């Protein structure tokens, strides 16, 4: 009888700490305001949440709100994308270099509008300047306490418009966060807006990362990369895929099983008239201003 009682207590204790759980992580990266992909992503996220047997987290690894290479997405779509992210309930996103391209004021506006934290641990504001983003956050997945840290690449950073930010080595910035906070977490997730190759180098230098969701390089990682215990993944780009990572976490807080798959997302026609009107206004103004030169 006492054995049964002790076993029951252990089960309750394990359930109480969330250990021995199955957690599903849904992830995107480099959506670049492709608004035509958002309805399909919404449906896929809803399906996966309904099918999951445990808690579900939703993350994005940055470059979500802008794409200057495509004129309409350089000037329109960010507000709609932020609203969509709020609606589907993202838990956190990493700051991407494109997300900085609207300038500091609009970036601050987008971050304020977002219902989720925007993360970056390796852009440090100088003393006295308040940054719109935060280095890391904790989210709860059932009974699991998940530490989520953001990182950004140094490629294509619009540094001149953010001179109050100092770029730090991603591995050193991450190590500093883990030294301080990892002991409070059951699971460590890094949202890194940097290529898979860079993530591998960071994981080699910084043990303690469980999941490393990457971006920037637009790689669709059919097969995850393993560095030590770290699982490195990326879900392509432009909202064409939703990453689905199912983790089993044992009673010691270790990931014992990680199964990854992708759902391909089809385009849905969306209203873009206002975007083209905006693009026309900006194009006309730019042309008129260029005529100043002559």
């Amino acid at each position: 009888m006492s054995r049964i009682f002790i076993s029951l207590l252990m089960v309750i204790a394990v359930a109480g700490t969330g250990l021995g759980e199955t957690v599903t992580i849904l992830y995107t990266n480099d959506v670049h305001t492709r608004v035509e992909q958002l309805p399909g992503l919404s449906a896929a996220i809803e399906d996966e949440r309904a099918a999951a047997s445990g808690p579900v987290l939703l993350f994005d690894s940055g470059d979500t709100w802008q794409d200057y290479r495509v004129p309409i997405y350089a000037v329109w779509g960010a507000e709609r994308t932020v609203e969509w992210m709020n609606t589907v309930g993202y838990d956190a996103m990493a700051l991407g270099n494109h997300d900085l391209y609207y300038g500091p004021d609009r970036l601050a506006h987008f971050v304020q509008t977002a219902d989720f934290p925007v993360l970056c641990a390796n852009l440090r504001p100088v003393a006295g300047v308040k940054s719109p983003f935060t280095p890391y956050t904790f989210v709860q997945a059932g009974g699991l306490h998940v530490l989520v840290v953001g990182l950004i690449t140094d490629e294509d950073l619009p540094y001149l418009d953010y001179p109050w930010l100092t770029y730090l080595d991603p591995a050193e910035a991450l190590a500093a966060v883990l030294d301080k906070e990892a002991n409070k977490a059951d699971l460590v997730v890094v949202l890194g807006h940097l290529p898979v190759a860079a993530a591998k180098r960071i994981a080699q230098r910084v043990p303690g990362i469980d999941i490393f969701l990457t971006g920037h390089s637009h790689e669709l990682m059919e097969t995850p990369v393993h560095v030590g215990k770290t699982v490195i993944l990326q879900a392509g780009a432009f909202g064409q895929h939703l990453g689905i990572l199912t983790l089993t976490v044992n009673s010691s807080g270790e990931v014992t099983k990680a199964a990854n798959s992708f759902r391909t997302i089809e385009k849905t026609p969306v209203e873009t008239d206002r975007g083209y009107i905006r693009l026309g206004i900006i194009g006309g103004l730019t042309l008129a201003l260029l005529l100043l030169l002559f």
Partner: protein
Amino acid sequence: MLVGVILLSTGTVTTAAYPHFPGDAGTIGVPGMTAVDLSLSASGPGITVTRGVTERIDLSLTIGPDSLCSLSGRWKVIDYLGVLTTGVGVSHRGWSIAAGLFLGPVRFDWGRRFGSDPARFGILTFSRPGVSVGFGIYWNRAPNFYGGITLFHDMRYLSLFARGREVTVSTGGLL
């Protein structure tokens, strides 16, 4: 002075502690904060103090070889309409209008000054963390090449730039 007066009407208006081409002026758009730029060229030394009055307006006082003491003001008219920023400036040389296209790591600034000392310019700037390189052309009485490099450390900078045959070294930052 021309390039600085015009350029500072553009992209850096938002928050920047630095002008795109230090040596010509200081910060803009950080209300209540002041930037100082010290420069040295063959023409002589110069100092510019710039005060952010609001997020869109700043005032600069310059003492240098071009003018014993001049006051200028800038107003950011369009603030990141997509990738476009536009501003106007007024100084003792006339009034200016300038624009910037912010394309991530590359930006293009151009503009024109009207008045007693008219001029035009177009400059491309490339940036990486801690360093910025810019080059372009400006026309005053004749076309001149413009090129410069700026190294940043926190809120301070060191810059070397050439305008025509004149080379200027400058340093400064936000107070």
